[in-house]
C-alpha cells in the first residue's frame, strides 16, 4: 500500500465508479424501439410451429371491433378449431390510439372468458395467462399458456 501513488488512488476510484456503472447500465433498460415487422416475423414463426393460421379481415371485425383509422397494421394468428383459444394479435398504432387498442384487446380476452366460463377449464387456464402489452408503437395481445415466456423470449431475441 505504501507504494501506491496519488495517481493510482484516483485510478482505483475511477475503476470503482466504472464498475458500479457497468452493473447498473444493463438494469436501466432503455425505452427501445420495436419494429412491427420484426415482432410480426417473430410471432409468425411461432404460429407456424404451432400450426396456427393467419386470421382474415372478417375475424378482425368480429373479434376486435376497431375503427380501421385507429391502427396502421394488424396481424392475427389463431387456430382453426373454435375450442382452441391460443391467439396472437399484433397491432401497429399511433401513440394516441394505443390505449384504445389495448382496451379492445382486454375486451377480447374478457369475451373469450365469458364464453368458456363454467365448462372450458383448460381454455380458462390459458386465458388467465393472456397478456396485453405495449412495445412502443406495437400492441401485442398474446393468449397462450406460455404468454409471459413468449414475450420474454421475444425481448431477448429482437
Amino acid at each position: 500500500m505504501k507504494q501506491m501513488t496519488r495517481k493510482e488512488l484516483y485510478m482505483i476510484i475511477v475503476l470503482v465508479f466504472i464498475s458500479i456503472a457497468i452493473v447498473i447500465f444493463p438494469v436501466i433498460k432503455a425505452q427501445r424501439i420495436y419494429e412491427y415487422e420484426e415482432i410480426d416475423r417473430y410471432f409468425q414463426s411461432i404460429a407456424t410451429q404451432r400450426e396456427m393460421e393467419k386470421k382474415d379481415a372478417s375475424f378482425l371485425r368480429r373479434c376486435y371491433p376497431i375503427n380501421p383509422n385507429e391502427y396502421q397494421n394488424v396481424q392475427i394468428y389463431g387456430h382453426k378449431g373454435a375450442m382452441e383459444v391460443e391467439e396472437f394479435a399484433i397491432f401497429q398504432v399511433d401513440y394516441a390510439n394505443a390505449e384504445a387498442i389495448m382496451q379492445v384487446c382486454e375486451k377480447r380476452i374478457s369475451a373469450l372468458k365469458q364464453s368458456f366460463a363454467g365448462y372450458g377449464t383448460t381454455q380458462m387456464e390459458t386465458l388467465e395467462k393472456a397478456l396485453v402489452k405495449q412495445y412502443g408503437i406495437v400492441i401485442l395481445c398474446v393468449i397462450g399458456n406460455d404468454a409471459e415466456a413468449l414475450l420474454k423470449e421475444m425481448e431477448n431475441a429482437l
Partner: protein
Amino acid sequence: MSFTSLSFLFYFLPIALFAYAICPKPLKKAWLIIVSLLFYGWMEPMNVLYLSGLILYAYLGGIFIQNGTSWKIKKLRTWIICGFLIFLLLYFKYAQGVYDALLALFQQEFQVSAWLMPLGSSFILFQMLSYFIDIANDRCEKPSFSDCALYVSFFPKLLMGPIMPYHRFQQENQLCALSWNGIENGVKRFTLGLAQKVILADSFALLYSALSHDFSTLGSWLSSFAYTFELFFDFAGYTNMAIGTAMMFGYYLTENFKHPYRALSARDFWRRWHISLSTWFRDYVYIPLGGNRVSLLKHIGNILIVWLLTGIWHGNSFNFVLWGLYYGILILIEVFLPQRFHLPKQLSRLITFLIVNFGWVIFARSDLSEIYHQLQAMFGFNDVWVSAQSISYLYSSIGLFILAGFIVFMPVERWFQVLINRYSQSEFIIYTCLLVTAIAYLLASQYQSFLYFQF
C-alpha cells in the same frame, strides 16, 4: 444487430467497409471502434454505455495491473480486477434465478425485469479476463487505448466469439491491412456462413421445434439429430460470418471449428468444437491449476473443475452443469482407461457422434424430466415407437438430413478445392449461387435467432 439481418447485409456492412477503406490510416481503428459500438447498440442504445464502460474498465484495469511494482502486487491486482468480471458474469447469469427463488420463497409477486444479460457478455468478459491475465504475465506489450478498445469491442467477434486471447489478437493483427484479396476471401467465407445459417440451421430449427415434444422413439431420435445439426450449422455459420467480416476489414480471427462431427473420441471432439473456448479453459484454468503435472487425484479434480466451469459458462440451469460433468466423466474415462484395443476409424466416428448427440439432448433442454423422457424414448423404453408426426417429418426432411450428413461427414472442402483447381470459374458460380439462395431464404424465412446469443 445480427449478421443475418437485412439492415446489416445491405446497409451496415457495405457502408462501414467503404468508410473504412477511404478513412485515413490513423483514423481506421477509431472508425472500427465507432462501428462496433453502433453494432452493439443498434437495438438497445443502453448497450453502448455498457460496452464503453467495459472498454474503460479494461484500459484502466490493464494500467493498474501493469503499474504493480512486484509480481506479488501484480497478482493481487489481477485477482481484484478479474474478480469483478467473474462477479459480473455470475451476477448476469444467476441474479435473476436467485431473485425469483427469493420471491417464490417469500411468496411475493413483485417482479422486475432487471437482470437481462447484455448480448454476448460471456464472450466479452472472457476475452477481458484473458487480456488482464496476459498483461499480468507480460505476454503482451503495453496496449494503447485504441488497441484495448478495439480488442474488447471488435464487432465481428463481439456477440458470439471466437474468444481470442489478447496476445494472439495483437500478434496476428500487427500488420493487418485492407486488401482486395482479403475482401474477396472475406465475402466467400461470409457467404458460406450465411448459407449454413439460413439454409441449413434454420431448417433444422423448425424441424426441432416441431418434434421437440414428440417422445416416440423415432421422433426423439429425429429431434436429437435435428438439434445436433442445427447447433453445428448455427454456430459454425456464425463463426464463418464473423471470420469473413473480420477478413474484409483486414483482420484475422482464430478458427473455432474443425469438422467436429468427424471426431474420433470425446477429447478429439473438443479439439474440434468451439476451439476458442476449450483453448481458453486450457490456457487460463487447466494449466494454471497444474494440468496433468500434479498428483492423480488433483489431475482428476482439475479435469472435473474445467468441465464444470465449461457447463456453468453456458447457462444458469442445471442441465448445463450436468452436460459439463458428462464430458468431464467421458474425458476422465478416456484419459485414465488403458486403451488396449483400437476400434476401426469409422466405428469410432459413429460412436463419438452418438455420444455427442446424447450430450446435446442434455444441453438442449432445461427441464430434467424432458431430458429423461427423451433419452428413455431414444433407447426404446417407451410405449410409442413411431408417431404419425415423426413418420411424416422423416419423409419430408430425409433430404435435409442426407445433405447435412454429407457436408458434416464427408471431406467436402477437399473435393471443392479439386473442383476449383480444375475449373477456375466454378468457384465464382458456386459462391454466387450460394449467396443468392441464402438471401432468398432470408427474405422468405421466419426469424430465427442464433442459438449461442443466449450465452
